[in-house]
């Protein structure tokens, strides 16, 4: 059983609140969120639309600032972690630059981070090959399907080899078949590189299949309802999806979500 997760905390979230707007437009997106992610851990976040999943990722990545509470990333402030390029972010939408070809989109972080030019071609080629887009180096984003665009954005997040990946519904736009393949691929990368991954998804099967732990969130205001540890052995394979324990865990997550949902209504 390979499970690269350690017990060193790498993301620590304590008593975090996030409020948007003021007056009648005031939205409490997150309320008293506490969560610790350990180095090398794969943590998924599930919850209904609008419960603050994206907001939580943006707080960790310093794209938003918490209204209250404290976040530490790698022992640093999120701001410092961002400056140190500790994480790669995969946005909910592919967010490709339409004037750049696929190849040059994936190359973007290498350019910005001033990685040695001689490595560019090889690293980009490797990443595109990994996401199955060998034949699309010179295509422009509009020439790709939504799923292909999202795969480019994943290649782009991995190409500079960040120790941490923050992924906001990266596979939401993919068909079931591609999605399952990408899941296996992501697990392979994770097990090989020991990255820490925080993964937002709407899919309970996906969350259970991938993660060490599944964080279940509830809406209005966004809170962590419960955290379900997933004790399925790694490496996880197609057989994992057929195991009895897999179904039990999915049911557990689903029940928690349903409970929270009925409470909210």
């Amino acid at each position: 059983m390979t499970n690269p997760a350690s017990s060193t905390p790498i993301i620590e979230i304590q008593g975090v609140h996030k409020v948007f707007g003021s007056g009648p437009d005031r939205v409490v997106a997150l309320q008293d969120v506490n969560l610790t992610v350990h180095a090398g851990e794969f943590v998924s976040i599930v919850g209904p639309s609008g419960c603050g999943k994206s907001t939580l990722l943006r707080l960790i990545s310093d794209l938003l600032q918490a209204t209250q509470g404290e976040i530490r990333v790698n022992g640093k402030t999120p701001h410092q972690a961002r400056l140190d390029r500790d994480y790669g972010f995969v946005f909910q939408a592919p967010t490709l630059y339409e004037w750049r070809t696929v190849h040059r989109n994936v190359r973007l972080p290498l350019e910005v981070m001033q990685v040695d030019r001689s490595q560019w071609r090889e690293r980009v080629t490797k990443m595109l090959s990994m996401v199955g887009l060998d034949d699309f180096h010179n295509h422009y984003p509009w020439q790709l399907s939504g799923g292909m665009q999202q795969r480019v954005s994943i290649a782009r997040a991995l190409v500079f080899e960040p120790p941490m990946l923050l992924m906001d519904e990266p596979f939401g736009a993919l068909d079931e078949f591609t999605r399952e393949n990408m899941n296996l691929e992501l697990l392979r990368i994770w097990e090989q590189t020991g990255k820490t991954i925080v993964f937002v998804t709407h899919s309970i099967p996906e969350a259970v299949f991938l993660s060490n732990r599944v964080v279940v969130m509830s809406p209005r205001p966004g809170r962590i309802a419960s955290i379900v540890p997933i004790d399925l052995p790694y490496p996880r394979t197609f057989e994992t999806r057929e195991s009895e324990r897999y179904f039990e865990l999915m049911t557990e997550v689903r029940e928690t979500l349903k409970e929270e949902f009925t409470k909210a209504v």
Partner: protein
Amino acid sequence: MAESVTTAPEQALAGGVLASPRMRKGLTVVGAILAVIVVWEGAIALLDLPEYKLPHILTILQAFVEPTPKGPVYQLLLRDALYTGFEAVAGFAIGGVLGFLLAVLFIHSPLLERGLLPYVIASQTVPIIAVAPMVVVGMGQLGAPPWLSKAIIAAYLTFFPVTINVLRGFVSVERDALNLMRSYAATKAQIFFKLRLPASVPYLFTALKISATASVIGAIIGELPVGSTRGLGVQIVYGSQFNTFNPGFLWATIIAASLLGMAFYGAVSLAERFLVRWRHP
């Protein structure tokens, strides 16, 4: 079932020739020209217009080839069009660069934008026809070459669309496109050159196409005041003064001016097609 299958010759008859997009485009142009001729000549016939009000198309065509001491009219107009074109291009370049730099300034300093943008907008409400003589005469007295004052007026009309559109291009970048750069801890310069600048290119070309024709008009307006000796503007003044005697000439200069504007517009469109290839067709 068999009846519905058309054979190749039938298809050619039914529209095989018309189906070629190039052919269809050619026919549209021919059709448009024919329509103009019909309306033009029809108006003259119906309203019984004299030549000095609206000359026959043939009169205008004849005016082009009429001989003068300096050669046939079309040669004269070509020379003047090239001169006016030079002034317009110079003004276009000055205005384009200035307009672009203003946009860069504004995007990096919201304070300056709030302070200066109202004046930039106000500048465009000044009737240029009224100001042009002052600029031309004033700059002439300062010893500037005659083409420069015309270029300045062309630049005055050019810079504004560029500033406004490029500014819009700069702010058109989506929030997450910007967040992506922030997640890489990109510098301000990197964000500008790798994101805002390329994102603004289509907007820039929208502006440049407007400015291309505006700069020709600016140069011509600059040539209208007394004292100018060269350019289409001078010929237009001349043509309107002698319109009663030579009604075809004024229209020949007008056509020359509009051809110049169209040529400039076409050149910018061509450049756009080369530089903005990544665009969804």
